[in-house]
């Protein structure tokens, strides 16, 4: 049972009038896996997760969470689900603690259990010292953290985060990304939607690229980049006989191109991360001193551009 996916969705489809917002979307997420749904605004990300969370009726398709079928009417599957909507969904006239206790009690906890769990979550999101303040007095970043905290109350098997960093300052954004990373490390399955390529690359074990309601590609970052067929770039700033080093490197299998520049060597290679030690060893063997190394890998932005002909933020 532990090996079966936490989330399975198959053939999801939803129309709004004549507009097909989501069309035949299928994917699954395993325990401890962070799955990113990457796509531009209006691509169908929120519609997809709304169907997965049982918020929205689907026209076709199946969803199961922790082995239980999810519909808009079911309650059993929702027990294992934590949902963090894109917009702030907390009550401004209640304190942070009261917000958490209220939602915790909806998950079947007694008042005492709910208070205990709320204090744990407040500690986790760093709001213990402001627990008694009404949330309308919180800063934007604090509200965002509380918004995520509500989704963690039931220690969910699947946590859905819908663009949680939209409109967040860089410091809070970084804190949110670190928190999400920690959750998946603790075994929680995470479905993370974003239109920020950097977030998807940093957080997600696998990424599904969605556009115009279709899941057009899916896989690990490396698999997706490999799908595009592009190579990594390595720029070495060096002093010494850089020409000899460039010639030696050009004979290696993983090096597609080696050229000498004004202050070093530029290389086009496959799997730069894996092959960087070999490159540095060759330079050392030739007596060339390496002052700096810059590795540029093709990113998901490039993948999206390749697949759709458009940039993510178009």
């Amino acid at each position, binding site marked *: 049972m532990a090996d079966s996916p936490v989330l399975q969705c198959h053939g999801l489809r939803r129309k709004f009038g004549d507009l097909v917002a989501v069309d035949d979307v299928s994917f699954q997420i395993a325990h401890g896996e962070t799955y990113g749904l990457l796509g531009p605004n209006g691509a169908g990300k929120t519609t997809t997760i*709304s169907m997965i*969370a*049982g*918020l*929205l009726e689907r026209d076709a398709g199946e969803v199961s969470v922790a082995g239980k079928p999810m519909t*808009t*009417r079911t*309650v*059993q599957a*929702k*027990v*294992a*689900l934590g*949902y963090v*909507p894109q*917009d*702030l*969904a*907390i*009550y401004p*006239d*209640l304190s942070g603690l*009261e917000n958490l206790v*209220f*939602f*915790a*009690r*909806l*998950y*079947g*906890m*007694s008042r005492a*259990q709910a208070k*205990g*769990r709320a204090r*744990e979550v407040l500690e986790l999101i760093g709001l213990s010292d402001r627990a008694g303040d*009404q949330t309308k007095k919180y800063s934007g970043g604090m509200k965002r953290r509380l918004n995520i905290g*509500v989704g963690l*109350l*039931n*220690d969910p098997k699947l946590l859905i985060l819908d663009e949680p960093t939209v409109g967040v300052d860089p410091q809070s954004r970084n804190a949110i990304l670190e928190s999400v990373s920690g959750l998946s490390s603790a075994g929680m399955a995470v479905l993370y939607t974003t239109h920020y390529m950097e977030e998807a690359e940093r957080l997600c074990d696998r990424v599904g690229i969605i556009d115009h309601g279709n899941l057009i590609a899916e896989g690990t970052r490396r698999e997706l980049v490999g799908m595009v067929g592009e190579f990594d770039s390595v720029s070495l700033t060096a002093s010494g006989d850089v020409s000899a080093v460039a010639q030696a490197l050009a004979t290696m299998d993983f090096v597609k191109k080696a050229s000498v520049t004004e202050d070093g060597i530029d290389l086009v290679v496959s799997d730069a991360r894996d092959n960087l030690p070999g490159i540095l060893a060759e330079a050392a063997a030739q007596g060339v001193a390496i002052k700096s190394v810059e590795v540029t890998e093709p990113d998901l932005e490039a993948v999206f551009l390749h697949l759709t002909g458009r940039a993510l933020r178009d």
Partner: protein
Amino acid sequence: MTEQPARRPRAPARAALLIAEKDLKARIRDRSALIFGILVPLGLAFIFNAIFGGVSGNSLAISLGVAVSDHGPVSQAFVRQVLDPLQRSGLLVLHTEPSAAAARSLTANGTLRAAIVIPSGFSGAVLANQPASMTVIENASAPVTAQIVHAIAEGYTADLNRIRLSVRTVAANSPGGLSPARIGQLAARAAAAEVPVAIRDISASTKELDNKSFYSAGMAVFFLFFTVSFGVTGLLEERNDGTMARLIAAPIPRASILAGKLITSFVLGAFSMTVLVIATSLLFGASWGNPAGVALLIAAATLAAIGIMSLIATFARNAEQASNWQSVVAVILGLLGGTFFPVSQAPGILSKLTLIAPQAWFLRGLGDLRAGSLSVIWTPIAALLVFTVVTGAVALFRLRHLAEV
């Protein structure tokens, strides 16, 4: 780390109560329910009472001076059979004055709003079937009062004239005529006779709420419609604020969300009405009637208000629009329902229109309650429940769509 948090669906009824508890807590914090549900109606009831009747008195009671120089049976009958019943009904407060001059002076300085003077020899003239007159002293600043007192006096003199006419007719048709002594006897017997049929007009006196109670009840039920709207409008606020998605994502039935909002409305409405009943009774001396009957009427009126306000909310796109529409409907129904003035006594179609206002049925129920036992309020309660069922059924059908994202 404490034990693993519970993961189980919440029982539907418990979930509804949790939502209602949360909403009530928020409403108490933002003070809107307190202001609209209690403070504003209480303040307006105080103002209306102060303007139209004084906080501690009955505004309709006319201070009438009576100066009776005649001690005969006809003037005594006028006081006993006409003025005393009107005083008991609350229309008049009688002040016996020693002379016409005293009555005139007190009326002129405003102490009395009018006075009736019955001169010496009044009864004797009537009994002799001779012309007799009484005098009405008016206060120029109280023309309506003067008309009422005139009507009272003219009503009695008309009776006396009928007696005179009857005695003259009998005398004219008696063979050989009647002696003055015999005519006097007939006139005296007729004048002394008690009114054969006395109509107990419960609609005008007993059944009608006094001013203190009327304005207290009127303002309470008028603002009841605003107070209950806080609950049902909460559905739209949850949608606008994004918290509806979170509630739907929780392991509770959607019906619990609706039920929670309706419970919030009922508690807010019933609580504010109860506070107003107690406060107006203590502060203004309002008389609401049998507590059990009042409780039933409040419960029925609250349900009717929830039904109507919920139905209005289902047509709105957001909480602000719902609030605007609900306010318009509450004001129109409040005016039609006679919460500011008794429209039911207006002529023509206006009095019929009051039937479409639950407020009118509530006030009518309170009036009925003053006049009789609990059994007399079933009609108003049934009417209020009809409002509840009709509007509530349509609203519930439509409200399901509000519990969506």
